[in-house]
């Protein structure tokens, strides 16, 4: 092994510039594959983090969103019906609205969530993501008070929003009583939380609910509870105009999407890796042609076809492995750069990339395999050379 490596190293360093260009092809290919796949992986990881915020003992019930709003909203009566389903421990209704929010004369459109403070706190007790940076949660019957996400405090408005400041929601003043820590999830970071009854009153939608978060009883089967809720709602509403999502379903549904993103991005990147592989093949064909006499010499001093095959395969594999290692490093750097750029220009949590050790290792192995495969034909050609003919070409 060491001898093959040394011999390959000598051959490759003999044609430094050619080797460098070939390596470049592999480096670009692998870097592209790693950074592209890191986007899909990152999205998956950030989704899993969001689900962790939600917890595994919760279901989400909502009506499907269509362009321009929801078809038919859920109501308090529906929430009460869900509350009566076996296996349900707590039902927390949320009403969300996109409306005009004003701070010190600056007007923007923000998302305001109405919730029952007591129930919400119980629902989310024990799950991460709702830690306070400052102040407190809005309390039961806390009229004209709001708790805001980190983004609202930090950069939503020109000026920083602090505890004690007043925001005007639909021209009605609310006092900020607490600020959450940054979660990295854009939706949570830019949310404003108010009391559900007051918010609905303000919006003129007394009984409307956007989503219902259901916490199930310990020991209950979440999938079975979900089915029972579906039955109850279907009877009530007369049609299946709602969705009940379990964490598993969310992972499955969104996971499919991310898989497709990964395949598409990875596929595009794989094309550039294929080009890198063709580069290796090209270089190896050149090396074999150039070293015809040398192959003749090696054969004349006793090299078998297998020896020659191994020598050249080792060379092309080495190009793959070296190019792959450098490519993984570059890919990692690019993925980090995408992260930094995305959080700066797109905002937190929109685009997130992750390079896992498994991914780095498989990319490296993949590069090595591409190198070997690219080298098969040239190496085979070399091994089949007729020694007399090969030696004559040098004379």
């Amino acid at each position: 092994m060491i001898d093959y490596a040394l011999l390959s190293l000598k051959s490759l360093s003999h044609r430094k510039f050619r080797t460098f260009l070939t390596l470049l092809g592999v480096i670009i290919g692998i870097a592209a594959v790693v950074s592209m796949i890191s986007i899909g992986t990152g999205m998956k990881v950030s989704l899993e983090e969001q689900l962790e915020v939600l917890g595994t003992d919760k279901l989400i019930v909502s009506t499907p969103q269509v362009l321009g709003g929801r078809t038919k909203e859920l109501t308090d009566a529906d929430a009460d019906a869900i509350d009566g389903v076996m296996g349900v421990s707590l039902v927390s209704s949320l009403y969300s609205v996109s409306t005009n929010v004003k701070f010190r004369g600056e007007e923007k459109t923000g998302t305001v969530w109405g919730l029952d403070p007591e129930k919400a706190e119980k629902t989310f007790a024990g799950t991460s993501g709702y830690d306070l940076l400052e102040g407190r949660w809005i309390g039961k019957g806390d009229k004209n008070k709001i708790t805001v996400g980190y983004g609202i405090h930090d950069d939503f408005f020109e000026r920083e929003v602090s505890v004690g400041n007043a925001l005007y929601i639909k021209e009605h003043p609310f006092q900020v009583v607490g600020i959450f820590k940054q979660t990295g999830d854009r939706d949570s970071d830019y949310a404003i939380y108010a009391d559900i009854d007051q918010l609905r009153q303000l919006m003129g939608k007394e009984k409307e609910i956007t989503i219902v978060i259901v916490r199930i009883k310990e020991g209950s089967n979440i999938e079975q509870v979900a089915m029972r809720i579906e039955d109850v709602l279907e009877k009530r509403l007369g049609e299946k105009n709602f969705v009940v999502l379990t964490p598993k379903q969310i992972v499955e549904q969104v996971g499919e999407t991310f898989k497709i993103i990964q395949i598409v991005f990875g596929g595009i990147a794989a094309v550039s890796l294929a080009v890198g592989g063709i580069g290796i093949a090209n270089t190896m064909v050149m090396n074999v042609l150039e070293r015809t006499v040398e192959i003749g010499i090696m054969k004349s001093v006793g090299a078998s076809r297998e020896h020659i095959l191994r020598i050249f395969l080792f060379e092309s594999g080495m190009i793959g492995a070296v190019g792959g290692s450098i490519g993984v490093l570059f890919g990692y750097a690019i993925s980090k750069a995408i992260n930094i750029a995305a959080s700066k220009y797109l905002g937190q949590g929109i685009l997130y990339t992750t390079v896992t050790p498994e991914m780095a290792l498989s990319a490296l192995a993949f590069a090595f395999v591409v190198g070997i495969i690219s080298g098969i034909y040239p190496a085979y050609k070399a091994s089949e050379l007729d020694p007399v003919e090969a030696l004559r070409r040098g004379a």
Partner: protein
Amino acid sequence: MMPMEIVRLENVSKIYTMDKVQVPVLHGISLEIYKGEFVSVMGPSGSGKSTIMNLIGCLDRPTRGEVYLDGKNVSKLSEDKLAEMRRKKIGFVFQQFNLIPRLNALENVELPMWFAGVVKAKRTSRAGELLRAVGLEHRLKHKPTELSGGERQRVAIARALANNPEIILADEPTGNLDMKSGEEIINLLQKLNAEGRTVLIVTHELEYARRAQRMIKLRDGLIEGIEVGK
């Protein structure tokens, strides 16, 4: 005592096909070479000298006839079996030296042992010994381009001896050398022969050819005559 036969050609013909044209090179040659013999082959270019060397050296197979090497018929051996024969029985010395330019003298001599699967430490020590034996102990780490023609040919001879072969095949070993270096190389080959090795040399120089025990004269792919020297 009967001399031991090491090479035997039986009615050997060789036809090369070049661009669909058949070029006959040897027309049924029969020849024996004995263990420990020093044999020279002479003849004008195109007479088939190198082809005989290639056939005996297992680089090539005859079109017709049989080639025996150390009692074994090698005429129809597979490519890999031929490689094994070359590795074990044959040491080549070429007119063009045919050293690998990127490897130094020591590594060039190690190469046949590497193919034979000899471990690194043993290879290096034997290669060093061989280079010392041909008077190149001060050139071990030199690349071929840093050596004179005579020195390169001595490296090639050391390499030919690496796997302790039965036969040394030297194809015009002095063809690219000046008089003095050529003389040294012939002396070296004679010395190897004196130590008991079979040496077969192709040469244009009548003076060198006559130093052999037998001189085979080739013309147009046939043996024109065999001259017994000394």
